[in-house]
C-alpha cells in the first residue's frame, strides 16, 4: 500500500492574467501553488475545496491537459511527466485517465457508444475488430450497460448512464490511476448513489487508484481512504478520512465541515460561519492565504510567510502557523 503511483512535488500552475506591451506577465493567477502529495497504489485520495481553489487544475495537470508551470509529476516508473514533450507524454495517457464532471459535454454527440468506448482501445494498439468488440461489450457490462446500447448515441441516455459510458471509456485503457473530476456533482441524488457504488466496485475489481476531486464533503468521505483539503491553490490539510472528519485541525477544514448541512433535523450543531468570501488568487501576498477569513488568526499569521507542513498525528498533516 505504501508504494506511490504518482508523486507530485512542488507542483504549480500559474495563469497569466495581464501582460505588458512586450508580452511579459505583469499579473498572474496562482491556480495551484506549491502542491506536494504522494498518491499510493490502490487508494482513493479525495481532494476537496471550494470552486476556484485549483482542485480541478491539479487533476488536469496529472491527466496531461495542462502543463505545470513548475514542479514535478513523478510516475511510478520514475519518469517526470511534467518534463516530457507533448509527443512523449502521449505514451503515458493509457496509465492515467480522467472522468469528467458534465456527462452531457464529455461525450462526442456524433459518435455511437460503441465508437466512444472503442476509441481508446484502438489508441492502445488493438486492431482486431473482434477483440475490440468483445472488450467493448465486456466494459459496458462492467459499468452496467447492456449490449443493445452499443448502437445508440449519447443523447439517447440519461445523465447517469452517460456517466457510466464515460467511466467505461476511462477503463478501456486499463489505467493505473483514474482522476475523477467531480464525477457525481451533476447527477441527481438517487443516481449519484448508483454511480458512487459503481466506482467503488470497479476500484476493487480492476485494482484502481483514484484521485477523487469533489466539492461535496459527504461524497468524498464515502469514497475516499485519505482526504486532502485545498484552499486557494494550496493543500492545507490531509489525513486518513476518519481522522480528518472527526478531528479536523486546520481552521478552514473546521469551518468547511461545520458548514455542511446535515440531513438530520435534530442535530443542531454549532456552525462556524466564515466572514467574507474567498479572496482573489491573482497575485496573492506571501502569507497564509486563509488569514483574511480565519477565525483563529493570531498576530504571527499576518507577519510570517506561507506556513509549512506539521505532522500533528501519524499521517495527519496540517499547514498552519498555529501548529508550528
Amino acid at each position, binding site marked *: 500500500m505504501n508504494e506511490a503511483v504518482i508523486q507530485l512535488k512542488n507542483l504549480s500552475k500559474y495563469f497569466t492574467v495581464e501582460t505588458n506591451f512586450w508580452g511579459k506577465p505583469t499579473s498572474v493567477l496562482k491556480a495551484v501553488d506549491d502542491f506536494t502529495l504522494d498518491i499510493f497504489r490502490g487508494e482513493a485520495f479525495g481532494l476537496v475545496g*471550494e*470552486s476556484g481553489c485549483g482542485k480541478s487544475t491539479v487533476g488536469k495537470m496529472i491527466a496531461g491537459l495542462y502543463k505545470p508551470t513548475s514542479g514535478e509529476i513523478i510516475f511510478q516508473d520514475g519518469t517526470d511527466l511534467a518534463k516530457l514533450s507533448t509527443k512523449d507524454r502521449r505514451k503515458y495517457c493509457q496509465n492515467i485517465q480522467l472522468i469528467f464532471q458534465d456527462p452531457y459535454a464529455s461525450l462526442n454527440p456524433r459518435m455511437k457508444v460503441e465508437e466512444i468506448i472503442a476509441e481508446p482501445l484502438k489508441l492502445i494498439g488493438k486492431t482486431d475488430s473482434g477483440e475490440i468488440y468483445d472488450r467493448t461489450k465486456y466494459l459496458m457490462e462492467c459499468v452496467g450497460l447492456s449490449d443493445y446500447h452499443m448502437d445508440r448515441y449519447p443523447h439517447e441516455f*440519461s445523465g*447517469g*448512464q452517460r456517466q457510466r459510458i464515460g467511466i467505461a471509456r476511462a477503463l478501456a485503457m486499463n489505467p493505473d490511476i483514474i482522476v475523477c473530476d467531480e464525477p457525481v456533482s451533476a447527477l*441527481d*441524488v*438517487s*443516481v*449519484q*448513489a*448508483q454511480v*458512487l*457504488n459503481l466506482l*467503488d466496485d470497479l476500484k476493487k475489481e480492476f485494482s484502481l487508484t483514484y484521485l477523487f476531486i469533489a*466539492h461535496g*464533503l*459527504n*461524497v468524498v*468521505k*464515502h*469514497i475516499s481512504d485519505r482526504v486532502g483539503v485545498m484552499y486557494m491553490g494550496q493543500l492545507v490539510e490531509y489525513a486518513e478520512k*476518519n481522522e480528518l*472528519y472527526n478531528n479536523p485541525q486546520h481552521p478552514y477544514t473546521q*469551518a*468547511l*465541515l*461545520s*458548514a*455542511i*448541512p*446535515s*440531513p*438530520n*433535523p*435534530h*442535530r443542531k450543531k454549532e*456552525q462556524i*460561519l*466564515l466572514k467574507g*468570501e*474567498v479572496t482573489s488568487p491573482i497575485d496573492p501576498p506571501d502569507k497564509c492565504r486563509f488569514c483574511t477569513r480565519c477565525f483563529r488568526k493570531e498576530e504571527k499569521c499576518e507577519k510570517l510567510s506561507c506556513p509549512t507542513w506539521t505532522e500533528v498525528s501519524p499521517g495527519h498533516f496540517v499547514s498552519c502557523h498555529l501548529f508550528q
Partner: protein
Amino acid sequence: MLEIKNLSVGFQQKKGTVNAVRDVSFNVGDDEIVAIVGESGSGKSVSSLAVMGLLADNAKIDGEILLNGENLLLKNEKEFQEVRGNKISMIFQEPMTSLNPTMRVGDQICEAILTHEKISKREAMGRAVELLCSVGIPAPDKRVKDFPHQMSGGMRQRVMIAMALACRPKILIADEPTTALDVTIQAQIMKLIQDLHVSYNMAVILITHDLGVVAEVADRVCVMYCGQIVENALVADLYDNPKHPYTKGLLESIPRIDEDKERLYMIDGVVPSPQNLPEGCAFAPRCPDCMEICKKSRPALVESEGRMLRCFLYHSVCEGEQK
C-alpha cells in the same frame, strides 16, 4: 395564506402534452418555511413558476392558486404584476445571470421598488442602501454603485435577495438559491434567509434538491416525484420516520458525514420520462415494496398520521382508521 389546490401544468408540444406537474396541492402558512424537494424534472421549479405566473405561453394550467383566498390564476397579466414582486417574490438559482450586467445594482434595486411604489428616486436609493445593509453587504452605500461583475457569486445572490425583499413581500420563493454557491457561502446565505424569514415575517418556499439544507432550515417538506407530491410532512417526522418508499430511498442514498456506510442504498432504475409515465404509481417500477395494485392504478394523496402520503402501502391503514 397560500393555498395550492389540484395544480396541474402541461406543456403543449409537437408530440402531445407533457404533464410536468400533476395534481399538486399544498398550503403555506404565514410564518412557515416550506421546502419542496425532488430530483431534476420532478416539477418543483415548474410549480413555483406557476405561482409566480411566469410560465411560457404553451403551458396549460389547471387548478387553483389561492393567495389569501384570491385565485391568482383568474387574474390577467396586469393584475398579476401587482402581486408579483409586491406580495410574492422569487430568487433564482443563477446569481450570475439573473442580474442585468449593464446596470448598477443600486439602480436595479430602485427599479424593483419604483415599479410598485410611488416614491422619489432619492428615497428609493435610500431604501436600496437599507436593503443591502439588511442582507449583510458591507459598506452598502458604496456597493450600490457597483456593477454586478464587480461582485462575487455570494454577493450577487445577496443583491438578488435584496431585490426580492424590496416591497416587503408576504411570500419569498427561493428556487435553488445556493446550488451555484460554495458550501461556506451556502451556509451564510441559508442563515440570511432564515433571519429574514423572522425579521420580515414572511413565508418562504424553498425549492431544492439538497436534503441537508432542508433539514437545517425548513419547517415542512413536500417531496415531489414525477410531477406529484408523494409525501408532505413536518421536517422532524419526515427525517425520523420517512414513510413513502421514495422518500426512504432518497434519505438512505445520500452519503453522510456523521455515519459510515460500506455501500450506499440505491434506488434502482431511472426516473421515467414525463411523456411515458407508467400506468400505475409513477414510482412503482423502482419501488422495493411494489404491490400488484401499484402497477395498475394511481394512488391518491391521503392523510395519514398528520402527514400527506401518496402510496397504496398506507391507503389500507387510513381506510381502516376511517372505518
